[in-house]
């Protein structure tokens, strides 16, 4: 038993729904009690889909358990076929149906439906949403795709995008255009946007472009082995990765890697002097493995940040993220426990978080700016405007997205300079963010606050590090976006020197010590 407050991933059958909902002509018959239909709203509300997910829930109740839930399943399956006339059906069980062991796959096969029926085994008590999507797409491909003659012109399939994916809609557009510019046609994009008959002609492509390893890797590996299609290993998020991706595609396709990148603005925006203030900002990264790995490279090599911590919630990516963290000289945090992530962020006191919607809330609570880089998704992650993460435009979007939560460059200088100015102070927040500017607190209140103080950090042993009132007051004068760092550095310095008290002098000695 594991106590969970918020989860990063849903159950595996939600992953299967992401595949089915992204596709057309595929229907999912899910053996499940009422209530599991909540998952429909993920698609209709968060993603604003204009149709119901193609899912029939058998809706068994307690009173059915004594009799025959298998009949309910068969009726639901037959009705779903009659009503929706899909090209193929996937069948499976949600967590509760798994316990009653009706074998939906066996039942559906025995019905002799005139379309392919694909049984899913998704262990609800061991695995999670990404596994469910990956496994479902793999099974669909395994059942429907066949070796066939290659297309005359060089072509590829795009693998991995699903319903409810983080920016999948726009990534597909961006990468399809990039491939076209390189002279590579897209044969099938799947699962999102494809039908079972499209899956059947996947074999015509010369190679595969794997955009989302979380949801497409098993299928890509199967295609490599059974259809002889190699697949790309670089996920084109960021300037460097997009370049590597282009080189990889050019090699696989036998085309020139020369492509017009005049739309790419991130490098100049990062190099222009207004961005100097970004130098060495300490960022903490958390999300799915693929997006975190991509973000780490952008953060360090393209934005000039310092990566002070990273981690992912999907254990499937624990190994590569651990290796990457080592390369960055930090400890990897592999967990799906939101409270652990919060504790890690609190301890590291980064100047910015690059995370998921969960970390956005953590940041809100701790007063740390956050930009969202990864699923789990939120209605805000489906903007009306074109907003990819991949390719050239993706890099531009990422620059804007990451800079936006921060106080702007010049503004940061002014805040440093005027510190306790009555209008220009911490509580006023960044000028380009919404919200009413609040007046600076009265000086008395500041003094009171500093005496009542924040909780005193505990040292090892019986020693307790105490912030003297003057030092606490001085700390308050440091702008909020660097105050966390100043506090942390000062405490680390005091610990180093074996001090029990922090005075104003300690504060400035620490500043000099850590100067760079």
């Amino acid at each position, binding site marked *: 038993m594991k106590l969970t407050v918020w989860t990063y991933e849903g159950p595996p059958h939600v992953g299967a729904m992401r595949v089915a909902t992204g596709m057309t002509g595929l229907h999912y018959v899910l053996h499940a009690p009422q209530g599991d239909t*909540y998952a429909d709203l993920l698609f209709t509300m968060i993603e604003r889909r204009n149709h119901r997910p193609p899912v029939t829930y058998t809706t068994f109740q307690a009173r059915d358990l004594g009799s025959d839930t298998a009949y309910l399943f068969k009726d639901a399956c037959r009705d779903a076929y009659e009503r929706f006339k899909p090209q193929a059906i996937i069948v499976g069980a949600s967590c509760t149906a798994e316990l009653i062991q009706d074998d939906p796959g066996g039942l559906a096969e025995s019905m002799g439906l005139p379309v392919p029926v694909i049984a899913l085994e998704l262990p609800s*008590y061991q695995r999670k949403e990404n596994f469910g999507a990956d496994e479902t797409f793999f099974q669909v491909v395994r059942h429907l795709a066949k070796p066939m003659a290659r297309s005359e012109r060089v072509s590829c399939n795009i693998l991995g995008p699903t319903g409810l994916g983080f920016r999948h809609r726009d990534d597909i557009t961006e990468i399809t255009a990039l491939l076209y510019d390189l002279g590579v046609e897209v044969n099938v994009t799947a699962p999102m946007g494809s039908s079972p008959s499209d899956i059947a002609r996947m074999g015509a492509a010369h190679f595969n472009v794997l955009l989302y390893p979380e949801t497409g890797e098993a299928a890509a590996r199967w295609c490599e082995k059974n259809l002889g299609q190699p697949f790309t290993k670089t996920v084109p998020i960021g300037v460097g990765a997009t370049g590597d991706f282009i080189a990889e595609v050019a090699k696989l396709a036998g085309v020139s890697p020369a492509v017009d990148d005049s739309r790419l603005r991130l490098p100049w925006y990062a190099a222009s002097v207004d961005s100097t203030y970004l130098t060495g900002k300490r960022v903490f990264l958390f999300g799915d493995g693929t997006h975190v790995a991509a973000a780490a490279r952008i953060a360090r090599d393209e934005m000039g940040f310092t990566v002070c911590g990273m981690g992912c919630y999907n254990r499937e990516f624990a190994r590569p993220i651990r290796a990457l963290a080592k390369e960055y000289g930090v400890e990897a945090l592999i967990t799906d426990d939101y409270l652990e992530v919060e504790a890690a962020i609190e301890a590291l006191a980064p100047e910015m978080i690059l995370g998921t919607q969960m970390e956005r809330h953590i940041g809100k609570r701790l007063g740390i700016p956050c930009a969202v880089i990864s699923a789990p998704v939120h209605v805000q992650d489906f903007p009306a405007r074109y907003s990819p993460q991949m390719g050239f435009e993706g890099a531009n979007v990422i620059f804007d997205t990451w800079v936006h939560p921060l106080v702007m460059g010049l503004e940061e200088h002014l805040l440093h300079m005027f510190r306790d100015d009555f209008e220009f102070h911490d509580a006023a927040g960044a000028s380009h963010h919404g919200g009413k500017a609040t007046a600076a607190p009265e000086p008395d209140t500041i003094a009171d606050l500093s005496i009542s103080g924040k909780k005193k950090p505990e040292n090892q042993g019986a020693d307790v590090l105490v912030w003297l009132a003057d030092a606490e007051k001085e700390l308050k004068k440091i702008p909020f976006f660097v105050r966390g760092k100043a506090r942390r550095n000062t405490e680390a310095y005091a610990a180093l020197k074996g001090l029990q008290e922090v005075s104003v002098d300690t504060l400035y000695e620490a500043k000099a010590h850590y100067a760079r």
Partner: protein
Amino acid sequence: MNDHAPLGPGCRDTPVLKERGQREVFCGLTGIIWLHRKMQDAFFLVVGSRTCAHLLQSAAGVMIFAEPRFATAILEEKDLAGLADAQDELDREVARLLARRPDIRQLFLVGSCPSEVIKLDLHRAAERLSIKHAPHVRVLNYSGSGIETTFTQGEDACLASMVPGLRDTDSRELLLVGALPDVVEDQMLGLLRDMGIDNIRCLPARRTDDTLACGPNTVFALTQPFLGDTHAALERRGARHLPAPFPFGEEGTTAWLRVIADEFGVDRATFDRATQAPRARARKAIAAATETLNGKSIFFFPDSQLEIPLARFLTRECGMTAIEIGTPFLHKALTGPDLDLIPAGPTISEGQDVDLQLDRARAARPDLTVCGLGLANPLEAEGLTTKWAIELVFTPVHFYEQAGDLAALFARPLRRRALLKHGASA
């Protein structure tokens, strides 16, 4: 109530269309979202699967992100395979939770589909844990599972679980049952006090209240129409129910108050003095929304069990015509007084086969369709105007001062569609 006599035969005896099939509704766990805000020292621990945690997060995550007073103890492979004693695991998790949250006085162990199917005895666990953590924390249990409960039935199961723990009393008390936002509850108590009715208790109380009692001289009124099990549990304790239309709109609120006033012998003049001003305000506020609603048709998909009282309000006070009133369950003992007031005509349906019901809605083309979040955008894209039902549970809508807000909730989608010049094609 005499001034609101039904115009003809009501709907109480209308034959009910009973359906069985796929249901597009939440399970009872969803009630935790509002119950944990209402009961400020209670914690709800769902014993279930990752799906349960994901449901709570999806239904609530975007609305509240304080450290919530609910969590899910997720069953894992080793719990199911019998490798770990689930009861021991539960004891450990509860001990850890209570150590972290000393502010908790009441802990609800909430059963789910998987815990019910593997027959995990949460009642026994609650008794054991109550003894272990007494007197500081009381541990109760109920089921919010989807195989037994639909959406608002979770609140019913929760409140019913609290009834056996009420103290015995012989004094004459009024118990008002149903979770209402504090501001609405205060208005309700104020109206009754103005009539001279004191000695009122509310279930659930905002904080653990050991003085809540029940006995043969207790009378109770329900503020929500979905409290069938709680109603039965209170009757078993000897309390007497005061059946009335539910307090939605000016008419419903007046009728509900009138039943209580009559029970406590409040004279007409006192009643009028207490209600006259808010009644006038409610009528005025409803009239504003009625300009939009009058003459429009409405179709209810089953969701919160509020459908029948709301249909009564919308047909009688806002001039709408009901085409179909779908409800997950029909408790005539509770909603009978509302059914009496709805003019005959609409189809009354109980249960659901969502595809068949969608066919009926598409054929009827109602001006407004009340449905769950899974159906709303797809129907909008088909050109039907919708009102998402969950908002009716998450918004203060009871009693006089909210009557206008309630009507406006239904008017807003219609006004919005009229405002937007470029259609709703997606």
